[in-house]
């Protein structure tokens, strides 16, 4: 690819991700409102979309307070980690077969590595705050991430076995031939979905934050721009996980195959990618609206006793099918 295109894609991704993350703040609240039989924020601008801008201005203009008892360096570094790693994760997302920043041959591993590094943000934020609620949130985050990391990776191995490659472009191309992986790797999809929610610590798996028990968990002491970075990171990870689910299990830029060829030729590929990702984000918001938060021990036992065996069985069956059929 030409260098100019690469630059365009990089800056497009960067600005697009920021813009979508900001708009998501409004969109999520609006959608939650509809699902809870209210209207949601609808005052600022048309349909209340100006709320996104108002929120950004508010966060930027707020006092950026560092508590005197906090570990200054760690406290400042913590929120940057999640944003940097999540933005780096976008590097391997293929929007279409030609439009991506990097088609790494270890793309999937890179993505997993980046999401794992994001845990440092929560962990350091919890530790550096010198606050017991923040510490509890950080502890929970560490345990949750470590355990859900295991089968988040394992759940994707079935896909990798079928594709024979870690490259996300190859994965989508395989789906063009074999049908979407959501059918052949259904249990892998379920586990990845649950682990993805836990990874981006959104509701119902937002135990590190757990507003009702831990105030705000790891970002109790944060305000202003640093808090904004945590929020940005959370929404970025939501977008990233959604686009990963789209890419890996829902055929990325491929249109649904039951549509006639005329439609598939007419609609640009990138539309399918963004439509699927958007639907996935809406589903995450629906999860938030509908499912209560599990208790901490329930979360752990659900992970280790159900999801891990499910992943392993899925892996074994996939392996067996590939070997002997």
């Amino acid at each position: 690819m030409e260098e100019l295109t690469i630059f365009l894609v990089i800056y497009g991704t960067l600005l697009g991700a920021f813009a979508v993350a900001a708009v998501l703040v409004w969109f999520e609240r609006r959608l939650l409102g509809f699902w809870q039989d209210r209207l949601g924020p609808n005052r600022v601008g048309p349909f209340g979309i100006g709320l996104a801008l108002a929120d950004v201005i508010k966060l930027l203009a707020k006092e950026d307070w560092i508590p005197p008892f906090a570990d200054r360096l760690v406290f400042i570094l913590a929120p940057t980690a999640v944003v940097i790693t999540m933005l780096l994760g976008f590097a391997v997302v293929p929007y279409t077969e030609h439009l991506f920043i990097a088609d790494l041959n270890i793309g999937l591993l890179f993505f997993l590595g980046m999401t794992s590094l994001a845990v440092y943000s929560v962990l350091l934020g919890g530790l550096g705050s010198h606050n017991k609620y923040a510490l509890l949130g950080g502890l929970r985050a560490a345990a949750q991430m470590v355990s859900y990391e295991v089968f988040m990776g394992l759940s994707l191995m079935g896909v990798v076995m079928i594709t024979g490659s870690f490259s996300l472009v190859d994965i989508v191309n395989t789906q063009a031939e074999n049908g979407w992986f959501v059918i052949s790797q259904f249990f892998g999809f379920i586990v990845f979905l649950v682990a993805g929610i836990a990874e981006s610590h959104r509701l119902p798996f937002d135990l590190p934050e757990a507003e009702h028990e831990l105030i705000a968990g790891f970002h109790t002491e944060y305000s202003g721009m640093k808090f904004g970075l945590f929020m940005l990171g959370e929404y970025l990870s939501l977008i990233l996980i959604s686009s990963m689910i789209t890419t890996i299990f829902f055929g990325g830029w491929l249109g649904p195959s039951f549509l006639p060829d005329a439609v598939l030729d007419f609609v640009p590929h990138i539309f399918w990618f963004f439509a699927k990702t958007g639907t996935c984000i809406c589903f995450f918001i629906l999860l938030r609206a509908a499912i209560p938060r599990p208790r901490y021990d329930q979360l752990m036992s659900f992970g280790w006793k159900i999801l891990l065996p499910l992943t392993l069985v899925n892996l074994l069956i996939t392996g067996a099918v590939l070997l002997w059929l």
Partner: protein
Amino acid sequence: MIKAIWSQIVSLYRIFLHIFAKADTVQYPEEMPYLAPRYRGRIVLTRDPDGNERCVACNLCAVACPVDCIALQKTEDEHGRWYPEFFRINFSRCIMCGMCEEACPTYSIQLTPDFEMCEYDRQNMVYEKEHLLISGQGKYPGYSFYNVAGKAIKDKDKGEGLNEAQPIDMKSLLP
């Protein structure tokens, strides 16, 4: 386990259906919610059908008030009729509980379906008698305390009230 997961999926579906439901909330400043006539809001003092103030300064409302926001002073006119010299309600304390309305023997003090009483200056929340007194009869039209009470007043002697028997002469032995 299957059952638990199934119930989560059902709740997801049910919540999703709510996107088609009409919002229960009201766009308040533009769209006013319906408030029943017996809604407990701003307190008023009403008048009887003749246009005289109903309040007889009995102090029962002030006694009943759990937050002590009512203050009044009794005085009499030349016919011996009681009325409040001043009547003051501090609405920054008032909790709109309606105890005063229940305690009032003359239906004078009444709560109205109006709650928009915001003020920038707290002192403006203190309502004096001229702010409280309205020209109408409120929720109980046609009721006049002195017409049914057995108290002699300007144009009415004992026993001349509505449904009132003549007073008994306690000094007499006749039946």
